[in-house]
Structures are given as structure tokens and as C-alpha cells.
């Protein structure tokens, strides 16, 4: 079973360091995960594939598309960026969002809170990650229905006189 960790186009060294720490690795192994794939983006921390004993570790910075990595994952751990979240939710994968509390004004927290309130994901911070990995109940998550851009298009077409 595979865990895919993504930080999108940003750098989120705290997450990478925390998720490869002994506590988190143990929590993942206890849940039956065998593989850990890290997309580290612009981060300066690039773990050595040998460091996580008990898990097969893969590390990369960017790919043109992470849809294959998402497809093959059984759990996605993501930063709270909208693009990453929507991609994971769109693929109907269990999603654990780690909010970066070092960002200015941290607007990403709003979306994570709302989506957790709607039971589409679970969120935490780096300091609570290992505890969350031990305690989380992924069976409580509900399916996410994608947004409808066609409503926007239809409205705009009428407003500007195209229809």
C-alpha cells in the first residue's frame, strides 16, 4: 500500500522532515503501508531513499503530471494548496492535509477546515502529524463532488450577451 506525499509547486521542508521521522514512519508501517513517495517541489530537504527502514522510499521534485502517482496511492498526504487538494479529491483518494503554519496569513487553513467540516479530508499540522496518522479514521470520509465551472460559463455567456 502506497502513501503519496505532495507539496505542489511550493517548498514545505517541515512536512518532508516530519513525515520521514521515525514516529511517522512507524505509524505508517503500523497501518500497513509499504511504500512512500515524496514529491518535494522547491524544498531544500531531499531525503535519501535509504533512510526509512521498513518503507520503500521514492523521492522526486516535479513531474509534468502527478495524476499517475495519485492514481496509485492508497493515501495522499498533501500541503493545503487548492490545486493539490482538488486533484487528490477528484481522484477519490483518502486525503490528509498538512497545513503549513509558517505561511503569511495562512489562508489555506480556511479551505482545509471547510473540507474537513464536509468530511472530505482530515487536516493537521506538522506537529500533530504523527498523532493524526495513529488516530485517523479514513472510513469516515465522504465522496467529494467536483465543482461546476459550467455554471460560471452559462452565467457569463448570458451576462455579456453571447446567448
Amino acid at each position: 500500500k502506497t502513501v503519496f506525499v505532495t507539496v505542489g509547486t511550493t517548498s514545505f521542508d517541515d512536512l518532508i522532515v516530519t513525515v520521514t521521522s521515525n514516529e511517522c514512519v512507524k505509524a505508517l508501517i503500523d497501518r500497513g503501508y509499504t511504500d512512500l513517495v515524496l514529491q518535494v517541489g522547491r524544498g531544500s530537504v531531499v531525503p535519501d531513499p535509504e533512510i526509512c527502514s521498513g518503507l520503500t522510499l521514492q523521492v522526486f521534485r516535479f513531474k509534468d503530471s502527478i495524476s499517475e502517482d495519485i492514481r496509485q496511492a492508497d493515501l495522499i498526504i498533501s500541503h493545503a494548496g487548492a490545486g493539490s487538494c482538488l486533484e487528490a479529491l477528484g481522484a477519490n483518494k483518502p486525503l490528509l492535509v498538512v497545513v503549513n503554519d509558517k505561511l503569511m496569513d495562512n489562508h489555506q487553513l480556511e479551505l482545509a477546515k471547510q473540507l474537513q467540516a464536509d468530511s472530505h479530508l482530515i487536516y493537521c499540522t506538522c506537529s500533530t502529524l504523527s498523532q493524526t496518522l495513529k488516530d485517523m479514521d479514513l472510513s469516515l470520509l465522504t465522496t467529494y463532488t467536483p465543482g461546476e465551472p459550467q455554471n460560471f460559463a452559462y452565467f457569463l455567456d448570458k451576462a455579456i450577451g453571447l446567448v
Partner: protein
Amino acid sequence: MGLLCGALCGVIVTLVTVFILRIFVTLRHGSKHKPGKKGPVSVLVVAGSGGHTTEIIRLMGALSPFYKPRHYVLADTDKMSEEKIRAFEAEREKTCSASQFTLHRIPRSREVRQSWSSSVLTSLSALVSSIPLLFRLQPDVVLCNGPGTCVPLCAAGILLGVLGVKRVLIVFVESICRVETLSLSGKILYYFADYFFVQWVPLKDKYPKAIYLGRLV
């Protein structure tokens, strides 16, 4: 000498007053302006960093082929967005007619975590680049979803209307990330956009002028 100064002051005050009145008049009549009635609608699309671009591409994917040509404007330091846009347009070309799109770059108004005071200077620099770009492209619509890059571009678009060159419609779709509070760009453009969309109920309640159609991306 005093007379000359007095006359000059009078002219300046008159010009400023006319300019401010023109802004009010221009902004008030957005809903009556229907560029779609004359044919294809050209759109200037502001692509911000990361998720902003992903969101705007999802919106663009729903628009009909009558929105052309499409002019994408990126910040000069944005590496990722150009690839996403080119991939989107290449995919679109398979189903619609030949792509009519262009890509442009302007200086970034503000980097993430940049201090507010230096942001004023970089925003002014972005505005100076935006004005000639808007004059050249003269889009019917400017579409944006909140990155800092969009404020100077929208300001330049409004300027075109104020000067009587072209009425440019400003369409702002606040990012799906914004549930309870507006982005800084949103707070500014709420008063200037012709169509201002929010994607969550708490914002619809706080900002009565906003249009709410549920989640759009």
C-alpha cells in the same frame, strides 16, 4: 505669476475631478455592456502561481469557443504556469478550431511573503507594464481569480474605460481557497469588478454584491 499658478491649479483640479467622475460613470454601467452581441469575445486571462493557474484553467475549460482570442498574462517569475497553459490549449485544439491564444509576461506585483511596503513599488512597476499591454490587446473581458498580478492588470483595464478607449469588463472569481475571508486582491477588486464571484456561502453573506453559484472549480 500668481495668476498663472492659480490657473494651473484650476486646470489640475478640474482634470482630477473629471477623472474621478469618469471612474464612477464607467464602473456603474458594466451590466449594460454586452460585447458578446457583436461576435467573439476576446479575453485577457490572468494566470497566477500554482493553484491559481489550475483554477483558472478549469474555468477556461468550460468557456465556449466564442471566447477568442485568449491572452494569458503571467508574472515574469512564474515557471510552472506557462506549461500548464500550453498543455491546456493544445488539448483544446483537438476539439475546437485552431487555438487563438497568446502569452505575455509582466513583472510580478508581489512575491509570497514579500513585505507590504516594498509591494507598493513592485505593484507600480507591474502597473507601468500593464498599461501598454492593455492598450495593445484591448480585450473585451479581463478574467482573474486573485493573484497579486491581477490588480495592476484590472486597473489598466479600467483605465481604458475611463479614458474612453474601450470598455473592458472585469470578471473576478475568488479562489476556492477563500471560504470566510477575501484575498487582498478580492478586497480591492470587490468595488471595481463588473462581475465578482465567490464560491462559498459565508462570503456570499458578507459581500452582498458578490455572485454565488456554488463551487466552480
